[in-house]
């Protein structure tokens, strides 16, 4: 009888363990103008909250440093942020190493993409944002007069070849903006860059199963715990009509999409959106979306932006030259609504 009672107790205990629900994903609302959802399905509460605390610190650091809406507040323990740097043209400014490294990475990608990735055209981006976010033109036709005025404004701003200089001296780090027309805007790299640091941290901590969803267009994935293949299934949103046009199967990868389908105005029926080409100072209309798959979320964030502005010839030259070394894969939804793929090992299924 005692044995039966003992067995029943074990059974009840086991059932209560089985019924234990999987920890819910954690949501951050406050960083980089983005909803960030972190899913780490580990049950150890203490370990989980320590991981999340550190992750929040990473996002907060880069949010504070790259903020270009206002100066650092008193409780933010950094030397300068992008806003304050932008106010000091032609001055040697001491910055934190974290920001120095991020700017260095932006410079490297600028060179890698032959100038198609450019964090210094904030003034040009601002002009377009004013148009795209204006209630009158949102998803509607921009009047000829307004469009012509924009072109005149754009003409007055130069895209500078070497917009900023970085120097290191005895463990101190400096930046100098070189021209009046330079305005730094790290929006196209900072989120991915911080996400990659989070990914590296989780891997370093021995976490295998996780997902980081930083905004709807940017993912960084470990393995999927509750699927035999351990692969995540990622659907690609159709940029011209509701629904999805294909599915990707991935693990231990970052994915990033740049597209023209959320915020845009129209001119001559073409979409004028927020991804601005530094070559033409205009939003390009070669593709509706460019989805990149690779190993480094920061690089991908920047590359999806750069590739979006490249003509298909420049695009293919870039892929030929760099696909293998960067382990870069791309799926492109073209303006004529065809899909082009540049894949290595990743499986893509078109619907």
């Amino acid at each position, binding site marked *: 009888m005692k044995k039966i009672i003992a067995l029943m107790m074990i059974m009840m205990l086991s059932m209560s363990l089985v019924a234990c629900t999987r920890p819910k994903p954690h*949501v951050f609302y406050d960083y980089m103008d983005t909803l960030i959802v972190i899913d780490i399905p580990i049950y150890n509460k203490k370990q989980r909250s320590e991981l999340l605390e550190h992750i929040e610190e990473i996002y907060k650091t880069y949010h504070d440093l790259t903020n270009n809406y206002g100066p650092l507040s008193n409780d933010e323990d950094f030397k300068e942020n992008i806003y304050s740097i932008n106010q000091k043209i032609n001055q040697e400014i001491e910055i934190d190493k974290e920001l120095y490294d991020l700017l260095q990475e932006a410079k490297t990608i600028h060179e890698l993409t032959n100038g198609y990735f450019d964090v210094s055209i904030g003034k040009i981006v601002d002009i377009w944002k004013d148009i795209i976010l204006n209630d009158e033109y949102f998803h509607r036709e921009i009047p000829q007069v307004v469009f012509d005025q924009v072109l005149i404004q754009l003409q007055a701003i130069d895209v500078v070849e070497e917009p900023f200089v970085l120097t290191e001296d005895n463990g101190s780090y400096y930046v100098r903006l070189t021209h009046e027309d330079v305005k730094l805007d790290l929006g196209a790299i900072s989120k991915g860059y911080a996400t990659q640091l989070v990914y590296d941290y989780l891997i370093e901590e021995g976490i295998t199963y996780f997902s980081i969803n930083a905004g709807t267009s940017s993912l960084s994935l470990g393995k999927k715990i*509750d699927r035999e293949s351990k692969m*995540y299934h990622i659907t690609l949103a159709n940029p011209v009509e509701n629904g999805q046009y294909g599915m990707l199967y991935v693990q231990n990868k970052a994915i990033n999409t740049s597209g023209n389908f959320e915020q845009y105005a129209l001119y001559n029926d073409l979409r004028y959106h927020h991804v601005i080409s530094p070559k033409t100072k205009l939003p390009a209309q070669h593709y509706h979306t460019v989805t990149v798959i690779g190993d480094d979320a920061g690089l991908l964030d920047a590359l999806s932006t750069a590739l979006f502005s490249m003509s298909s010839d420049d695009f293919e030259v870039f892929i030929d030259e760099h696909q293998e070394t960067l382990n870069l894969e791309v799926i492109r939804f073209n303006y004529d609504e065809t899909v082009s793929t540049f894949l290595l090992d990743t499986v893509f299924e078109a619907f």
Partner: protein
Amino acid sequence: MNQGNQKKRDIMLAVLLFILLGGVFIAFRLLAFKDDASMAYVYYGTSSDPIVTIAFTEQQIIRHYDQDTPASYEKDYPIIDEDNQTITILGDYMIDGIRQDVVIKYDFAKKSVQIIEEQSPNHICSREGESTGWPLICLPNRVRVEFVNDQGDFTV
């Protein structure tokens, strides 16, 4: 009593329990990860539990919990208006110290959701249009609507 028989009975009991537990475990797994394609969840704040579920096929709105709002707001949020097919959440965005409503319109037949009213700089989320799959995110209001995705884990 024969000791051999008792041992046999113990083993049988253990096997039985093992099978039973296995069954329970599988049932829980299946239930926990069952996806229904035609649902959308409305979330408020940092909670990962939906405040409202829109079940398109069943044509039902399920209110999961009340929003914890100060008494000065005088209404019980979320407000579900079945005649106008709207769900109203009290957002976090403030104008003159007063939190603002976020009005979500749903359509059972079209299986769609749209944010039709909200206050925020640039009105990004009410401009996201009528969605049948794309998540709608109102950052300054801390309100979001996500569809249950029957095909993939994420959409980019």
